[in-house]
């Protein structure tokens, strides 16, 4: 399950958790390759390690063994500071509960990743407007999260994830808190980002309907992947 120059390459990755005196192995010698421009849905039972996989790919958790490379860069040896810089440039996170700052407007939320760049205020404002336009919320820039529906909040979160133009989007149950219609809107946007803008997307989901929007589905069970191809 590898590709020649994959966007993501996991080689012999192991991850264990210690609970009291007990050590639980989530993965042991996990290998994975995901090509650039792919849209992968990761499914599996609770506790199978889906979110842990996403956290390892995003550099917010560390593997106990093995190599993790994203866009040909090894991240398993980076320091915390280096990882933060790397995340800012390469990763867009989308969370189940949106994780927006409740006291900030939509535009201010979307602007946050740009504060880590060298862009000036005007350039940041232009980027924010573009990102909100992509998710169809250009007219809601001054609204705060509590003034928006769940679907709209998730669209703001997507705008925040893409505003700094990362290569890889990591989505953790992005429709898990939404009704069907809102979920379909969000998944359509992700499909658009993958198809039109070439973003590589890894999406963890429990929802088979959501998984149908991906190009491929990986089933994670007992620390191993089982792949199922979907019609494009």
């Amino acid at each position, binding site marked *: 399950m590898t590709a020649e120059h994959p966007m993501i390459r996991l080689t012999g990755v192991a991850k264990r958790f210690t609970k009291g005196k007990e050590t639980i192995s989530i993965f042991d010698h996990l290998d994975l390759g995901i090509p650039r421009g792919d849209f992968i849905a990761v499914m599996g039972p609770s506790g199978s390690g889906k979110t842990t996989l996403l956290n390892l790919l*995003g550099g*917010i*958790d560390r593997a106990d063994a093995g190599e993790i490379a994203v866009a040909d860069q090894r991240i398993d040896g980076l320091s915390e500071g280096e990882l*933060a*810089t790397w*995340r800012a440039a390469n990763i867009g*996170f989308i969370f189940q*509960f949106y994780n927006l700052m409740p*006291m900030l407007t939509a535009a201010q939320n979307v602007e946050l990743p740009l504060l880590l760049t*060298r862009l000036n205020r005007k350039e940041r404002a232009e980027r924010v407007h573009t990102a909100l336009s992509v998710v169809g919320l250009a007219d809601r820039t001054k609204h705060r999260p509590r003034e928006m529906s769940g679907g709209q909040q998730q669209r703001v979160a997507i705008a925040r994830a893409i505003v700094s133009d990362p290569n890889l989007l990591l989505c953790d149950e992005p429709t898990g808190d939404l009704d069907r219609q809102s979920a379909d809107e969000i998944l359509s946007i992700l499909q658009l980002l993958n198809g039109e803008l070439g973003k590589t997307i890894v999406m963890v989901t429990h929802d088979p309907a959501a998984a149908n929007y991906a190009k491929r589905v990986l089933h994670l069970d007992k620390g191993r992947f089982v792949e199922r191809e979907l019609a494009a």
Partner: protein
Amino acid sequence: MRSLWLQVAAVTAINLKSIGQRRWLSLSTVIAIALVVIVLLAFLAMANGFQRTIAGSGADDIAIVLRAGSQAEINSTVSRDQVRLIEDGPGIARGSDGKPLISPELYLVVDGIKRSTKTKANLPLRGIGEQGTTLRKDIAITAGRMFNRGSNEVVVGKALLREFEGFDVGSTVSFGASRWNVVGVFEAGGSVFESEIWADLNVVQSLFNRNNVVQTVRARLTGPAALNELKSYSDNEPRLKLDVKSEAAYFAEQASQTSDLIQKLGWPLAIAMALGAVAGALNTMYSSVAARATEIATLRAIGFGGFPAFVGTLAESLLLAVIGGLLGAAATYLIFDGVTASTLGGNFTQVVFDFKLSPWLIAEGVALALIVGLIGGLFPAVRAARLPIVEGLYAR
């Protein structure tokens, strides 16, 4: 660097804007810090008011002569012969009539009743010489008249009249076996003399059987530099075993003893309370970090560093502390500034003074508040900076 400051500004703004979500806990911290500042500033205002009253009473060109080793007028004795020698001493100014400008004085303790508590307290009865009033600044009779020499009449300071009962003009007061008529009220520019009762020296000596002694001699000097001449004269004259000080130096010593004591009471009490406030601030800020764990972790996941989270948390704590400090200072000003009180001075008699806040004291109070905020915010800020991202993201 620019990016770092943008991060710090963004995280700090997020923290401060979210205080409203923790308003009651934040309010309790603000109140605790305000109470600490009120206690401290009340004591400091008391010490400051006392010191201003006493220290402001002395002049550089007035010498005060006491028995060698005497800490205060109350335990000094100067004989009639010594007074005569001082009159002939160098550096003492003379009036147009050629007489030396000196005032031998007798300082006695009499009883008075406090208006507020109806309890007895020691009051100073001062027998002054002919030049007694001219050797003091800003003496003015505000009601009635000055006492007549040779009669058992007294005038009372306006601060004493305000705090103690029975001294209205026209009334008669008893000190021991003697009876005195109150014939006037005087002011003395807010100095310690406004806490005294004044009478003619000779009458006081006579009625209290102190005919051949006084306790101090005040003398107007030809200038501040003449003090050393008088000192030298006293040191080299075997019949004068006396201490010569400027009146300003004497009162500065008197003021520092009591105001130091007040401050030594105030600071430990305020620090003990501050420890409680630190515990409150720690609780508030740990709760703040816990409440913002998901926000902090989200920002870290996006790429923000730990330092902005540290600064943002500390800024929130310091803001609460500054609000508490200013609130405490404002409350102290409204409640205590200008309030009149009395306490024992260096002569074991009551000194009436006003609590007095100053910008410097307010700065001390706010500084203490900031220290509380700094300690209370430091450890939670470290926790915020070190919060594992995964733990924070799934903290809901």
